[in-house]
């Protein structure tokens, strides 16, 4: 830190230390020098607005291949908004705008001419609430390959996807039953299997276990560890133990008051590092307060 900056810091109350997330991101990237080819997403200075208000502001971070990256933080800090940038799901909200750049294997995701449909084919997503289609288990799996015009051996894809999602043994005799006849945990694993069926590169998970009981949650966490072998995973979670248990890196977001008068808040990246460092030796006091349970 140069002297001008540290002076600026000294004049402010401790909790209000401005964190330049750009500088932070460069810092972490240098520290854990990874091969450039392992870089899946490079997020630079991304701000997402709903209308004029930013939901998250100036976020920069890198996501690496075959890692599980957890996004944690209090409600309203923009984690879900942020994760939806990776597969351009925010495009579907008319008032949402994304500023800054996100590159995916070096290619600008938001460049003109990039088809969001193509993006979503490579970058799968699992949602907070299990959302199987009102069809059979088998049809749920085959929907992705069908709409993407993939010529596949249907039986093989169904079995392989369900096996990878650790669901095969439970549903092998129920392939033609309605997906709604499965339990909540099974439905969520079906949604993961459905995402796997189109063989994506990245799987985004937006609080995939928040609607599930502890046993189903444990299953999903084990599954994520297995899936890591083949896929890169980004997960949003409210559950800090979950982040600590499954992820390789953790990004801590928080809310910051944007406008005193209206108490409007926007989300901000506070710290991004190896999960172990975030939970054992965080650099920022706000991170420490959050992970130790003193806040949020």
């Amino acid at each position, binding site marked *: 830190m140069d002297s001008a900056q540290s002076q600026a810091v000294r004049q402010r109350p401790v909790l209000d230390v401005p964190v330049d997330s750009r500088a932070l991101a460069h810092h972490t990237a240098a520290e854990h020098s990874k091969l450039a080819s392992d870089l899946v997403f490079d997020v630079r200075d991304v701000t997402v607005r709903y209308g004029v208000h930013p939901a998250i502001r100036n976020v920069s971070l890198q996501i690496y291949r075959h890692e599980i990256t957890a996004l944690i933080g209090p409600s309203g800090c923009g984690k879900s908004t942020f994760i939806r940038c990776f597969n351009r*799901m925010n495009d579907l909200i008319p008032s949402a705008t994304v500023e800054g750049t996100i590159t995916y294997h070096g290619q600008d995701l938001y460049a003109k001419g990039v088809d969001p*449909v193509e993006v*979503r*084919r490579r970058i799968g997503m699992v949602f907070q609430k299990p959302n199987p*289609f*009102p069809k059979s288990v088998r049809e749920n799996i085959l929907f*992705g390959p069908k*709409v*993407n015009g993939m010529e596949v051996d249907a039986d093989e894809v169904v079995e392989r996807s369900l096996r990878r999602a650790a669901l095969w043994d439970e549903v092998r005799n129920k392939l033609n039953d309605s997906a709604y006849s499965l339990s909540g945990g099974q439905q969520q694993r079906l949604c993961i299997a459905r995402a796997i069926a189109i063989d994506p590169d990245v799987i985004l998970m937006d609080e995939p276990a928040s609607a599930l009981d502890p046993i189903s949650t444990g299953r999903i966490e084990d599954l994520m560890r297995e899936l890591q072998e083949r896929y890169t995973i980004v997960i949003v979670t409210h559950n800090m133990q979950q982040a600590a248990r499954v992820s390789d890196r953790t990004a801590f977001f928080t809310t910051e008051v944007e406008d005193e008068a209206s108490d409007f808040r926007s989300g901000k990246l506070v710290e991004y590092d190896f999960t172990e460092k975030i939970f054992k030796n965080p650099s920022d006091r706000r991170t420490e307060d959050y992970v130790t349970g003193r806040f949020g």
Partner: protein
Amino acid sequence: MAVSTPRRTVHDTLAGLERGRRRKLKERAFATVLFTLTAVAILVLALLVVDIVLDGFTRINVDFLTRYASRTAENTGIRAGLTGTLSLMVLTALVAFPVGVGAAIYLEEFAPDNRFTRLMEANISNLAGVPSVVYGLLGVAVFVYALNLGRSLLAGALTLALLILPVIIVAGRESIRAVPLAIRDGGLALGATPWQVSYRQILPSALPGMLTGTILALSRAIGETAPILVVGAVFSRRADNEPWYFMEAFAALPVQIYNFVSRPQEGFKIDAASAGILVLMAVLLIMNSAAIVARNRFSRRY
């Protein structure tokens, strides 16, 4: 605490009970009034139906259903009206359903949120309230003359299709809106295009609601007299002029009943008219039942 909250006395409690009793009495009186109003409505309807059944039931037989109109009340039949109404119904549905469903999908899934879209939406809602005779006049101007279809079955069907289109669009949009957002997101997140999501997920889920809306709208349409009378439905038709020649003149049940009623002879005015009304009501009942069956059969749970 400096000031303690005043305790309820026994007296207060009893007063409260008294008030409760009075409230209950009021409630019961209100329920009785409502029941009476409902009963009056049902009773009038029942009287009407009973009266028509008594007058018309004996007049219904195979001859009545299969004969064309005759000069004498004993020999007259409603073949022309019945076949005309049935083919009007089919043709109207064939035109109105795809157009209405398409418009509903467009407005819900694809239309940008701008002034033009809002203008269209407001107009569709307004069209649902336009008197049916106005649609008849529109049908005469556009289909009969401008498109030169003449006073034909096709012109009649197109006019009725226009009449029920707003209802189908509104019902269609409602049932599309009832499909959970999570289904859309799930489809799109798997790399489906918005069209694929509409076609493969939303349409199948919304179809029962759309069918119900369409059938109910249709049953309103076939009871309509004014628009098809204006377009030029005829009362009698030559025997060699079957309704599936849809560029030819057509008859319809409501028009035929209207004609029966306006004759001086009792055989027409009372017997034949009542019988015709019974047949029309039977057709309507069958259609409404079909709507219920369709809804139960195709509906999906979430």
